[in-house]
């Protein structure tokens, strides 16, 4: 039977690996190529790389860095950040990336999802959705784009369904409120989305221990992703790259 995937999400800013809290306060974690090498030795299920400075700085993906990373990655690797055209998407696939991840451009240019799914298949077309509570009483969950700076007028479920219709084959569902706190996922959100979609959903944002993974999977996630969990250790958040062994993770699922 299939085993859910456990996915480190690595954030790149100015060529270095960083990690923050609630999409802010990013601190330097290490050299991306080196960190991917370490994860590779740990036989990680999959890795997602997100360049969080591309969209903000309105620049091209760093193809050179991506190629360098993929040459050390013998596991599935997805890339997101600054993808606005099908030409860029083609170049990314050519560098040895397995799946591309869209966020802001999925909303601004839905046709790009269609084109990518048509050319490279839905299973290689991933959309990352950032969800944050907003409103006067922080009572409603809204989708945000542009590194969680701009709110759009669709609920997470409406938006997810639209993306599936466009051809997305997987959704990375991130709770901005939970992200970086290591206190657990937004399990209600996970359940709401996964019970209404037929494509795999990757839960992200908030994992701090193995039990959190288990909860998200029980709420319907097909895969669980995390950032801090894999790069920080202890209360002082010392940088240490970790990944549970195959048998340790198997025990909780």
């Amino acid at each position, binding site marked *: 039977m299939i*085993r859910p995937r456990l996915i480190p999400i690595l954030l790149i800013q100015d060529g270095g690996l960083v990690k923050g809290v609630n999409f802010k306060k990013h601190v330097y974690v290490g050299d991306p190529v080196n960190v991917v090498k370490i994860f590779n030795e740990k036989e990680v299920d999959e890795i997602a790389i997100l360049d969080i400075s591309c969209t903000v700085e309105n620049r091209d993906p760093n193809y050179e860095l991506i190629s360098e990373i993929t040459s050390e990655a013998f596991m599935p690797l997805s890339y997101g950040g600054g993808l606005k055209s099908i030409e860029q998407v083609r170049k990314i696939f050519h560098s040895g990336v397995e799946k591309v991840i869209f966020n802001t451009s999925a909303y601004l240019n839905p046709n790009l999802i269609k084109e990518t799914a048509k050319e490279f298949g839905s299973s*290689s077309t991933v959309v990352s959705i950032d969800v944050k509570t907003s409103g006067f009483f922080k009572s409603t969950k809204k989708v945000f784009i542009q590194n969680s700076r701009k709110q759009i007028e669709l609920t997470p479920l409406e938006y997810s369904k639209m993306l599936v219709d466009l051809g997305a084959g997987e959704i990375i569902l991130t709770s901005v409120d939970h992200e970086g706190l290591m206190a657990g996922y937004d399990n209600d959100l996970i359940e709401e989305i996964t019970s209404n979609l*037929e494509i795999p959903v990757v839960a992200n944002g908030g994992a701090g221990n193995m039990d959190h993974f288990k909860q998200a999977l029980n709420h319907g996630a097909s895969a669980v992703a995390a950032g801090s969990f894999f790069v920080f250790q202890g209360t002082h958040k010392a940088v240490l790259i970790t990944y549970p062994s195959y048998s340790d993770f198997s025990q909780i699922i």
Partner: protein
Amino acid sequence: MIAVIDYGIGNIGSVLNMFKKIGVKDVCFTGKEEDIKAADKILLPGVGSFDRGMDSLKRSGLIPVLKDFALVDKKPILGICLGMQLLTSRSDEGQSNGLGFINGETLAFSFPKESNLKIPHMGWNEVMVEKENTLIPYGTSSRFYFVHSYYVKCHNDADILATANYGINFTCAFQCDNIFGTQFHPEKSHKFGMQVLKNFSLI
């Protein structure tokens, strides 16, 4: 020499990276007839849809060369993912005929909603190797990475090399003489995949 077929489709970067990693140097990414004729083995990669894959192959003009290679000269050919599916005669995914190098067809996964099984099937599976062979280690546990919505059904049980389970047991690798296919991605499957590509290079 192993010719990795360039027909404008497929994520070949990772295949080439892995060959490099395991020290298989005589690998050529090519869409040229003369290179393919001169090769000892062919690797047929592929991602995307069935019809698009067949269209690209037709447009490349390489189908007759591939036929000679696999069916007349009977030299080893390995299809990966969509590449495996293209070796069958047809697919639920499209209208085009496949290459038909193996007696089988490509079917769509279909599960009842209450099964909670998502499509595409995406992730790692341990596989059951069904017979002794030169490609996948027999009798030890190997796991591989899968991304697919369609799977191959061999019409000849003897061709089934390995199976995996996703809602149903399906053929995740086949072999009929010199014709090999894997639904999983060896190039994305750590040491397990390295072993498969290494074995292929040694056939």
